Every structure is written in structure tokens, then in C-alpha cells.
């Protein structure tokens, strides 16, 4: 469908795609992407409690990319049914996914723990706050976490 909106020809869409670059080892910027998504979801009128789920799941993922991987990309697709988040990093990959999913299990180095991160709650929280989660990982190549939060 095409509509004329204030002089701009715009293809009406039922979904919106947002892309973010996460830089490595920059704690001051970690959380920027989830914060932006949070703001946009509020403007779109998404239920406040659902926004919290998206924000926390995504923030944990973002922090993981900063701690364990050399940064990466986040791709978010928002449609009336769901928020789909794809977090792809260029990190070392996850050796034992089952182990990594255990609450409290952490491979974060001491200097990261000293900053208050690396408590081993990253992946468990991502699972807890998302409605669906999938992990694809390859040692030495990187990890892609796909999460879904349903909106309806």
C-alpha cells in the first residue's frame, strides 16, 4: 500500500527494522541499543511490562557482547505480534551451552567481575525475560542469539 503522508511517498509497513552496532569493551556505551529500543517501544504504545522484558533481555545480550565477544550487530524487528532480536557477535563461541545456561556459571575474567558484571546471570536472564530463545554458536567464529518477545 502506498500513501501520501505530508508530501512523502511512503510504503506503509507493518514492521520496523532497527540495526545497532555494539563496540567491544566499551562499558560506557553498553546499553545504548536496548535503551533506544525501549524508548521506541514506548512511543509505539507497547505494554509497559512487555517493554521491560525486551529491555532486560536485550541489555543482558548487549553486555554479553561487550564482555565476551568483540562486539557485533544487533538487529531488531518489531511487528504487531512480536519483537524479534538477533544478536550476532564475533566472539569465541560457547563451548557448552547447557553449562552456560546455568544460573551463576560465568567465564568472565576477574577484571570484568570487579566492575560488577559477569555474575553468570546473562544467558539465564535472557531466557527468563524472552518468550523464545535460540542460540547458534561456532567455536572461534561467534555466537548468534535470537530472542522473541510476543506482543499479543
Amino acid at each position, binding site marked *: 500500500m502506498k500513501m501520501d503522508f505530508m*508530501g512523502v511517498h511512503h510504503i506503509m509497513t507493518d514492521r*520496523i527494522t532497527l540495526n545497532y552496532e555494539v563496540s567491544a569493551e566499551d562499558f560506557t556505551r553498553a546499553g545504548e541499543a536496548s535503551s533506544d529500543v525501549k524508548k521506541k517501544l514506548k*512511543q509505539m*504504545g507497547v505494554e509497559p511490562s512487555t517493554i521491560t522484558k525486551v*529491555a*532486560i533481555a536485550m541489555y543482558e545480550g548487549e553486555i554479553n557482547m561487550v564482555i565476551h565477544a568483540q562486539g557485533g550487530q544487533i538487529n531488531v524487528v*518489531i*511487528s504487531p505480534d512480536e519483537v524479534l532480536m538477533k544478536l550476532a557477535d564475533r566472539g569465541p563461541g560457547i563451548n557448552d551451552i547447557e553449562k552456560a545456561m546455568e544460573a551463576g556459571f560465568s567465564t568472565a575474567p576477574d577484571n570484568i567481575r570487579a566492575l560488577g558484571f559477569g555474575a553468570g546471570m546473562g544467558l539465564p536472564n535472557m531466557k527468563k525475560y524472552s518468550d523464545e530463545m535460540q542460540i547458534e554458536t561456532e567455536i572461534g567464529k561467534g555466537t548468534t542469539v535470537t530472542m522473541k518477545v510476543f*506482543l499479543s
Partner: protein
Amino acid sequence: MDKFFTSVQLDEELCKGCINCIKRCPTQAIRVRNGKACITKKFCIDCGECIRICPHHAKKATYDPLSVMNDYEYTVALPAPSLYGQFNNLDDVNIVLTALKRMGFDDVYEVSGAAELVSEMSRKYVEKHKEKWPIVSTACPSIIRLIRVRFPNLLDHLLPIQAPVDLAAAVARQQAMEKTGLSTDKIGIIFISPCPAKVSAVKTPLGIDKSNVDAVLAIKDVYPVLLGFMKEAVDHIEDLSISGKIGVGWGNCGGEASGLLTDNYLAADGIENVIRVLEDLEDEKFSNLTFIELNACSAGCVGGVLTVENPYVAKVKIKRMIKYMPVAMNHLPKKEELQKAYLSINPFWTSRVEYEPVFKLGDNLKEGIEKMSLVEDYIKKFPGLDCGACGAPTCQALAEDIVRGVAKEKDCIYILKQKIHKISDEFSELE
């Protein structure tokens, strides 16, 4: 009264249409249109930042003139604790309180006195409601207004206890009625305020149905008059103070939180810092915190735009002054009468503060997504300079305005320039 009433107003004559206020506003509530700043009331949280930044003094706070004292048969002054931080070498607040009476008020009632009661009730409430930890302070009206438009998830964390000034007003009115036998409309309960947000809180209260405050005076108006009377008062000091360290400490950032007698608190001041704390709280980044005190103004209430002293200097003055005060005075025997008065007043909020989704782009999710994707399209066209020349604080804000139907694409001078270039190129081809 409009539920989005704000006390900040524009003096059109003085406004030059510059971009200082639009850039400073933390909720992006101001636009320059037709060369003048205009405030979108429903976005405004009354923080006073625009009043602070405006180089032309075109932003004004609404409050009452000193002459409002003449409108009532019997008046009670409610001095904010921040008032005490305005004076040099003040070692006895009774000098200020006596001077207020000499200035024309029939009685005084310290807001800091009620603050000690609020502290005591807050201690009990915080202890009892672990499920709401961390509990967020609600004494600053701008904070409640900010949370209700931007942080719906945090509404449950709000401390549902009246602000000290409202509690003080309720008690002062009751006492005045008993003492004088006058009807309620003949009594003027007059707050001496550090900030205009309190004006809005009186006119359109949140959490309670009606405030007992009848009028609000600015500290900066009262200050010069009071100085003269203070010199007179020194020789005839009346013992009027009803508060100690905890109550007066509320004037500074951290004062309310320290009155809870716990170490697990965070106290933030300055609206931008407050927003960061709220963002983090929303993302559940805090653990083991029981209480969060938030003040829109830097240094706390002493930093209000209606004060005269440098906020940090005022803060030191208060700190010095309370050093030798008793911790609190609400349990001393001479205050028994007060205790009784408090017992008859419900200090808790009587209604919930509801989410006001004023920043929403559409009526439903589908429309919201459509409009957001339009916003994204516009942003790609704009230069991203956030120059403010269009009257909106950022390119993003302009894009949202266009989608909301209150601005046009050619408001962007970068796009206008491109269009002019195109036209002039076409002209030169004709030659």
C-alpha cells in the same frame, strides 16, 4: 483544572526564539514556532530547566505575589527547609520564623516539622513493603510527573505518602481553625517555595485530591523583605521551631534518604542524572537498594529556581546549621499537641498515579509501528546535526513532529537549502 497544568510560562515580548530552552528541556517539551518558544504542556514536567537556561529571562514561573497575604483573615507561613540555606551565619532558625511573623504572617509552621513525620512513616512503609524495593521518593513533584509520562513500569515503586508541604498544610489549617474559630476559607496557608513545580503540585495534585496549600510565594520574593525583619527579630526570638536535623536536612539532596536511617539508599540530583537512574532502575540494574531519593534540581531543593543562593553554598549552610540540632523533634513532649493533630490526618495518598502515555505516536500498536517507521524514514533524510534551526531540539524530534502533524519537512533548513539549490540550478539551465 487541566491535568497537564504547568507553572512555567513564556513572556512573548522577551523571547527571541533562540534554541537554548529547546536544547535543555529534558522531555523535549519546547519548540520554537513563528519565532517564539512554545511549551507542549503535556510533555512538561515543571523541572524549571528552561527558566534556568533562558538568557533573555523569557521563561517565567507562575506563583503568587506577596500581597496574597492580604487576602485572608488569618495566615500561616509554611517555610520550606531550603529557605534556611539562603542566609549567612544563621545559627537559629527561630530568627527566620520570628521574622516571618513580624513580616505579617499570623503564625508559622515549619515544613521540616512535617518532614520528620514523613520520614518516620516512610521508615515504617519501606520496612513493610519489601516487594516494592527500591521505593522511590515522591516529595519532588517533577519526579512524579516525569515518571508518569516516561517510566510507567516504575509507578508501583512510588512512595504513596504526602509530600511534607501537603502534610504541613493540612495540620496548619486544622490548628489555625481550632485556635481562631475561623472558617476554612478565611485562613490562608501560604507556602514559601524554592520551586515552581510546587505551584503545579498545589493546583493539580497527584496522589491526593486536594492540597491544603492556598498560595505559593517564591523564596526570592520573600528573602529581601525577610532580611530586614530578621535584624529586628534577633532581640525578640520566639521559640517556634518544631524540627531537628532530619527535618531541616530535607532541603538538601540526600536529606530525605538519610532520614530513613538505612545505608541502602541512593540519592540523585539534577534532572539528567535522575533520568539515568530511572532508566537503570527500569532495567532492573540495582540490587539491594531499599530507597531511591530523586531531586530534579542540582543539590536538592536548595537548587530550586526560585532560590537566591548558589545551591551548593546553601547546601553547606544547611549542613553546618543542623550540626548541633537534635536529630528530630517530633517526639519531644512539647510537640504532643502536634502528634494529636497528625493522628487525625491521613498522610497517605488517596489515589494511584496513572501512566500518561503522552509520547505515544499512534492509538494502537499497528498505527504506532507505522508511524515509527515513518519517523525512521524522515530521520534518514535529515542531516543529523541537531542544529535546532527548525525549532525542534533534534532531527529525531522534528521527524516525530512531522509524523504527529505539527511540523513540515521543509522546516529543516538543510532540506530547504537543497530545494533552493535545485531551483537555482534549473534556472541557470534556462539561461
